[in-house]
């Protein structure tokens, strides 16, 4: 049961967006999110929406996968909208009982909803088209200037990719321990929340012990294969910008120019 969980939400297909350098996608997503919050007018949102639609179309990922990511934040979105709708002072449009909907409130609520949904879809495009591994690589490369300030960039990236590799193994192990405990009469399903949380203790202890043992073994195996940190290490799959990546940067820059121009002019 636990084995079915896939990590991240990578959607396997061949597309232009999939093939882009992870740095382009990371940087592009960041710039896109900033652009969403730059100016507040309907034409700006339209441009941002069109750009997003274009990228989604190019990525060949079915739209329902993008929306799936929205599910998790529907609640947050709703709260934001409701608060903005009722609690913004200004010209009253409708009022009933103690609640007032103002013109300003309505506008802020709508624009917040648009911004947040585009933000989620925009970042979903990135996670759906980039493998976690690639993403880690991209982050490592992008953050590497921070090494000057003694930030352990390589180490953090290595930890992330090892964590990604071990999540399925530890899940499988959890499953095994759980079954072993159930076979000996443990009860994980009944009782109130507190009781269930307590029932998890005999599951977590062996899991932690085994995780430490694995970590120890892995460290030894890594050292046996000459691992000595990021210094002097070469890459099997180095990140190199190709023509498409440069083109993608141009497209993103073009979008930003249009978006800012509209923001200033209108």
């Amino acid at each position, binding site marked *: 049961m636990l084995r079915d969980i896939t990590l991240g939400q990578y959607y396997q297909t061949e597309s232009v967006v999939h093939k882009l350098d992870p740095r382009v996608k990371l940087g592009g997503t960041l710039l896109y999110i900033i652009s969403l919050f730059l100016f507040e007018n309907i034409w700006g949102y339209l441009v941002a929406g069109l750009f997003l639609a274009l990228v989604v179309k190019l990525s060949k990922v079915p739209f329902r996968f993008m929306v799936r990511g929205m599910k998790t934040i529907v609640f947050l979105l709703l709260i934001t909208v409701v608060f903005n709708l009722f609690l913004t002072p200004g010209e009253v449009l409708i009022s009933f009982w103690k609640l007032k909907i103002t013109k300003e409130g309505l506008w802020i609520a709508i624009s917040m909803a648009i911004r947040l949904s585009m933000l989620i879809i925009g970042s979903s495009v990135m996670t759906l088209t980039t493998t976690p*591994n690639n993403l880690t690589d991209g982050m490592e490369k992008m953050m590497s200037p921070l090494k000057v300030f003694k930030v352990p960039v390589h180490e953090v990236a290595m930890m992330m990719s090892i964590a990604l590799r071990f999540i399925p193994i530890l899940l499988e192990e959890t499953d095994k321990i759980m079954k072993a405990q159930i076979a000996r009469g443990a009860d994980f399903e009944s009782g109130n929340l507190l009781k269930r949380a307590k029932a998890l203790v005999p599951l977590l202890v062996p899991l932690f012990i085994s995780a430490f043992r694995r970590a120890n073994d892995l460290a030894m195996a890594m050292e*046996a*294969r*000459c691992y*000595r940190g990021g210094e002097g290490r070469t890459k*099997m*799959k180095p990140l190199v910008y190709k023509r498409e990546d440069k083109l993608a940067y141009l497209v993103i820059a073009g979008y930003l120019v249009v978006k800012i121009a509209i923001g200033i002019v209108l």
Partner: protein
Amino acid sequence: MGIIKADDVTFEYIRRDEEGNVEGITTAVDHVSLDIKKGQFIAILGHNGSGKSTLAKHMNAILYPTEGTLWVDGMDTKAEEHVWDIRQRAGMVFQNPDNQIIGQVVEEDVGFGPENMGIPTKEIWERVEESLRAVGMYEFRKHSPNKLSGGQKQRVSIAGVLAMHPQCIVLDEPTAMLDPNGRKEVIRAIRGLNDVEGITVILITHYMEEIIYADKVFVMDQGAIAMEGTPREIFSQVEKLKSLRLDVPQVTMLAYELKKKGMNLPDGILITKELIDALRI
């Protein structure tokens, strides 16, 4: 001097209590001397706790001898400046396949060693391809290691060591966690490396069937070498093996019992065919 030479190597684990006082000393390796020549297939045999894994870790400079010296390709493992050279020359494969695969894709894992050594990208790819072909895992290069069988994972681990172009591979019970089929696969791959690529193999195991192809066998007991010789020499001493708590392969056992009952059979029969031939005469 051979590729690996141990001279009177002793290793002691010091057990300490919570305050750090010495509680007791366990001698895991006890005055072991051996000399392994290039290109040999060596098997080290012993039951659990006989010190064979501890000895293996010395060959990769993970542990250093408390007393005595161990040389890998002429380099003293105690010398700090040689550690990485030693680890590249004497690769090591461990018991649990899950705990030694670092990459999330087979080819990335095989490339991990060369990456650490600072090999140029193009050459890494060549090495990865050649190593995966050598263990017969090339078709799986794009797979996730989590979806492979135990035997396949272990072959990937071997490829990962192979990609570092070692002169010698130390395998610490590589088949202990595998099913019989996986065990066969791995042993076949290891023999291939030794026969075809001429790499020195040091196989540590407690399965007797795996050592019949070895050039030389060392049997360890309580940290010391109790027996050494060719597989045939070792297997002809059934009584002694039993006293060391080791199982003899079925065929050898059968031949031994038949001989005891008065049949005229040669000593140290290793494979079924041999016994059949001997019985026909």
